[in-house]
């Protein structure tokens, strides 16, 4: 490509191919070059539209047409909701709407913790193991006759310790989070399963406060919905309005830069994993409260992927620094509405998984088309 045929190219390509450099457009993707190609030569000076300027938003659609991934998912969730509400009898009842929120409460709480970690450019693969094994340990202690306060205190200490160790290894030993948490999750599961409990399922003792918590209702709404809501608000306030919450974004967006301007990046990282571990413990307690037992087999399930899915599908980029509680709510809403509608239609599980996967894949593809990745938007560490 050269200037002879009147085409224009940009950036480093100009140096390589010798074509006319028309503007300080840095490395952009092929689509950008394609659009530039369509410029008719001879109408100089060419005006670069705002949307292609360096500091313009990513993508090649005008801003007003562009939907964020969060908005796409919200639209898909709303569409499923409207279709299900219009066609399925019993979908729009108050009880069913409560059931939808409840069915994603535990998932949502876990996703809140995951969101905090992902925003800080990490990932916590030990969340489900901590959730199930901490509560299994707690119940085993109770069934073995340990006093409630002592049992709760030791398990809480254990949960804090695991969160701290995760954070320490990521922040100070600088081991990638994916390996640290994968290993610590396996360790927690393996240790508790082999040394502490004798069976997969550990029952809640008779008349324990967890049993009462599980049957607590306010205005006929299960308590876990309120706890999910409260934790959502707390996480929102933490991320949005506290100094350390803002640090999570800075550390996630640009760890080196954040450290250079004096943000205590390492302690922020540790804090993220502690928060995630604590939220996992709460999620486990709520599961046990509802089912009157905890089954550690859940560690082998796809729950961990569902958590990451809820966070990421809602628009929290795995590259860190972006997103918030709202994204978790949107992601959880889609999953909750989808699963509920499919259960009402009585679709077999195999097809449910297929439909779920197809819709999610569709949403990701739509996001890929509308918000293409390029050198400007992609970050190091992006998975």
């Amino acid at each position, binding site marked *: 490509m050269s200037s002879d045929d009147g085409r224009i190219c940009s950036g480093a390509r100009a140096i390589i191919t010798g074509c006319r450099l028309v503007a300080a457009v840095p490395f952009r993707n092929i689509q950008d070059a394609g659009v530039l190609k369509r410029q008719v030569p001879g109408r100089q000076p060419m005006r670069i539209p705002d949307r292609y300027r360096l500091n313009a938003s990513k993508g090649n659609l005008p801003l007003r047409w562009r939907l964020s991934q969060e908005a796409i998912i919200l639209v898909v969730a709303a569409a499923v909701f409207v279709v299900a509400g219009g066609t399925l*009898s*019993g979908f729009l*009842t108050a*009880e*069913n709407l409560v*059931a939808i929120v*409840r*069915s994603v409460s*535990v998932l949502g709480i876990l996703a809140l913790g995951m969101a905090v970690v992902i925003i800080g450019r990490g990932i916590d693969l030990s969340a489900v193991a901590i959730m199930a094994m901490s509560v299994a340990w707690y119940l085993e202690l109770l069934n073995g006759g340990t006093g409630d306060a002592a049992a709760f205190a030791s398990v809480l200490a254990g949960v804090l310790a695991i969160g701290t160790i995760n954070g320490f290894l990521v922040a100070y030993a600088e081991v990638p989070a994916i390996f640290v948490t994968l290993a610590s999750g396996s360790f927690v599961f393996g240790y508790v*399963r082999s040394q502490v409990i*004798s*069976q*997969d*399922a550990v*029952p809640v003792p008779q008349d324990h406060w967890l049993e009462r918590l*599980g*049957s607590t209702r306010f205005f006929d709404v*299960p308590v876990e919905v309120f706890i999910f809501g409260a934790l959502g608000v707390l996480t929102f306030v933490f991320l949005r309005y506290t100094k350390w919450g803002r640090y999570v974004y800075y550390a996630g967006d640009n760890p080196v830069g954040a450290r250079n301007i004096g943000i205590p990046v390492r302690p922020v990282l540790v804090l993220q994993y502690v928060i995630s571990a604590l939220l996992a413990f709460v999620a486990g307690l709520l*599961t046990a409260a*509802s*089912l*009157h*037992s905890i*089954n*550690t*087999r*859940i560690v*082998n*399930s796809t729950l961990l992927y569902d958590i990451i899915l809820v966070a990421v599908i809602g628009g929290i980029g795995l590259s860190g620094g972006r997103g918030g509680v709202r994204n978790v709510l949107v992601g959880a809403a889609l999953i909750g509405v989808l*699963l*509920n509608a499919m*259960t*009402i239609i*009585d679709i*077999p*599980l*195999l097809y*449910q998984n297929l439909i779920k996967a197809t819709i999610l894949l569709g949403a990701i593809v739509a996001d890929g088309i509308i918000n293409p990745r390029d050198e400007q938007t992609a970050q190091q560490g992006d998975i």
Partner: protein
Amino acid sequence: MKHIKTFVAAAAAMVFSTFATGTFAQDAAQDPGPIAYAKALNGKRVMLVPMTMGFDLAQGWAAYIKKEVEAWGGIFETRDPNWSVDAGAQAITDAINSETRPDVLIVHSPDLNSYSRLAKKAQQAGTYVILVDNPTNFPADAFVGSDWDRLGQLEAEAAIKGCGENSSKKIGLVQGDQANASSLYQYAGIVKVLEKHPDFQIVAKPDSNWDATTSRNVTTTMLQQNPDICAIIDFWDGDATGAAAAIRDAKLGGKVFLVTTGGGEKSADCDRIEDGTYGAVVMTDLARQSADINAIIKFLLQSGQPAGTSSTYIYTLEKATTKADLKPDSCWDLKALQTSAQ
């Protein structure tokens, strides 16, 4: 006098010879059984590879088989794949290839197909393969477990009885998944019975994927859609706690008759029948099932036939237990069994 002497001598000789013959006869009457038994069994290795060692049935089998195998001088081992099909396959492969290859491999298969090739390999290597609980498409040397079709029929009959004639006659199912033989055949059995009772209908049949939380969520939806359901059949007591929670949450306890199936462990089944959580449970008679496994192990090791020669099905007698016919010995106690096995 001489006569008397002769008589005494003859008598003495007779007594002696009787004694002698007696001793000899005792030699001859030595039962060859125990010798052959010991010869065939002594030092033989038996390995159990369940889906996990973390649930009641596997721990129950292990306790019973261990006791028996060690009593006849064999070596008993277990492997714990912890629900992972891959880990189970690895355990079986390692066992077949190891120098201490088991003579009998007891496999609890996760589905119809996964271990078929491995089981065949094991047989080719000379290891007898016994399937427990879950059938596969592979004709093993023996299958010991439930006739899941029959078990489903028992569940459906219990549900129909639990509903009664004056009920809505609506039944909901919480299936396991669409891959496991126990789930597929259980469903087939339920359908068979309901065909004979056309006034009863299945209003929903979601899957729980054997997970209690999922079971709770789908049962909640099912009950909201059909609040007049009179019975629910959940395909495993491991996740039926979720269906029970949904019934409790909907305040339908006592109105919805919950039927499930399980290993007959006290805290998992009988205690829950007692407190009204479950209406009926089709329970496996673990002691009898384990005795069947032990018997077929002893038979195969003495049979002299190469592995893979025959294929025997030994179905465990099952029955639905309700609160009305709950007896102190209806269930077995895992803790007690483990204590006694040590």
